């Protein structure tokens, strides 16, 4: 798969390089040789119908799933699958954790920890993983909460907040790790329609800051506006890839046209 450098992307070596990655669950091959390059500062939208393997791809990138076969180069660390020998962990656990701390993930269901206040949620990993002092972690948490418009809610528990607020909180939690790459897995799919906008706004601002992001989304209009490159995944293979205008415009892929036309029309009124 050729990856043309795109609008915002820069640098010679990609921050993330996925090379011919396969992933099977039992007999079921969900990813059938996917290759993706993400350059520093680039925003990639990963689209495709439900079950096409988008989440699995994203989860392979931060190793919540272990690829069956293929190569990952994550922030200059190369990992080849399958690992040799009977080793169960693909790489040294410590290295794996250090890697994950630099790749933040935002989930569809927010996954804030219910027993902690919003502020404590955000302070947790910086203190426990990055070994920051409580004072420093708190200052930063408050700064990130202000950034996503939740400073006033810093002492609230997640389940007292709306879905949109929870997701903005989860984004703040991810940002507090100063990650080099942000992975979003359908960040607005679990939200009521009227709450989608506030979350997309936060993500749009991050894109404008030049952060490297891979966003799985069904918000086609948003993808078209924000992404430097769009990748259409279909049944575990990349069916189309390129600038948003190219992918969303008339295309050679019947499947993509079908996907765009039926499931999620590119509709100006939406979101």
């Amino acid at each position, binding site marked *: 798969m050729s990856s043309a450098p795109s609008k915002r992307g820069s640098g010679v070596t990609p921050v993330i390089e996925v090379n011919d990655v396969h992933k099977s669950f039992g007999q079921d091959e969900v990813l059938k040789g996917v290759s993706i390059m993400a350059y520093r500062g680039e925003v990639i939208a990963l689209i495709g119908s439900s079950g096409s393997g988008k989440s699995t791809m994203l989860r392979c990138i*931060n190793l*919540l799933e272990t690829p069956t076969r293929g190569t990952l180069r994550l922030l200059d660390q190369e990992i080849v699958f399958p690992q040799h020998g009977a080793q169960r962990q693909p790489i040294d*656990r410590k290295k794996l*954790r*250090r*890697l*994950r*701390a*630099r*790749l*933040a*993930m935002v*989930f569809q*269901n927010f*996954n*804030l*920890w*219910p*027993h*902690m206040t919003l502020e404590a949620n955000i302070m*947790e*990993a910086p203190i*426990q*993983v990055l070994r920051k002092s409580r004072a420093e972690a708190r200052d930063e948490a408050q700064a990130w909460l202000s950034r996503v418009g939740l400073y006033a809610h810093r002492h609230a*528990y*997640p*389940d*007292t907040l709306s879905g949109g607020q929870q997701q903005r909180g*989860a984004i703040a*939690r*991810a940002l507090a*790790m100063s990650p080099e790459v942000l992975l979003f897995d359908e960040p607005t799919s679990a939200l009521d329609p009227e709450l989608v906008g506030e979350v997309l706004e936060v993500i749009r601002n991050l894109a404008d800051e030049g952060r490297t992001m891979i966003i799985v989304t069904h918000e086609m209009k948003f993808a078209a506006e924000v992404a430097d490159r769009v990748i259409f995944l279909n049944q575990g293979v990349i069916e189309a890839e390129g600038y948003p205008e190219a992918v969303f415009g008339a295309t050679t892929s019947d499947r993509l046209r079908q996907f765009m036309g039926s499931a999620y029309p590119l509709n100006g009124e939406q979101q």
Partner: protein
Amino acid sequence: MVNYRDMSIGELLALTPPGWGGALLNGLSLSLQVAGGGYLLGLLIGVAGAAGKLSGGPVTRDLLTCYTTIIRAVPELVLILMIYFGFPLALNQLLTTLGFGRVEVSAFAAGIVVIGLVQGAYATEVIRGAIRAIPRGQLEAAYAMGMSSFLTFRRITIPAMLPGAIPGLSNLWLIATKDTALLAVVGFTELTLASRQAAGATKHYLLFLGIAGLLYLFVSFISNRLFRTLERRVTPGERHA
């Protein structure tokens, strides 16, 4: 020989002999200490057992399944007799094998071990259920930020499972307090044996066993209130209610 027949209820319940009040309170205190110690031991076993059942290897899981199955299937009275007499034997066997001297296992310590082992089996299941009810994504969020399994277990899993586990664990505490009564069979003068001795000596059976019952009821009443408060404090939605 004290003549109990002519004593008033007040005199019978006096804290100092010939009154039996002091002996009853002493029995209650012993019951609560053994129940408390056994309960804490049970919680430790429960947390470790649940972790082992959920993420241990096949051998660990099989061993734990044996443990919880046996403990839950065999009547507690039998277990108490077995562990009470077996545990000191086994411990001394082990110590002798390792070249240490024998130790005297006090009835108190053996009681805690008995209650703890029984409680541990049930606590393992209660805690395992509560952990399984935590949405997987909350743990993945921790892993995705570079937290280790142990750190995640300590900082996320345990506090997040508490609201789900507390009703079951509060139930277990009540069972622990009642199970101490079974230690009467091995001559440990906890509340039940103390009140039986009082009843036997004075022939005021109804009075002393009734008082023991009231004391158990009182413990249960206080415990329920404490657990309800605790549950409110660890359940996110109710914290501010």
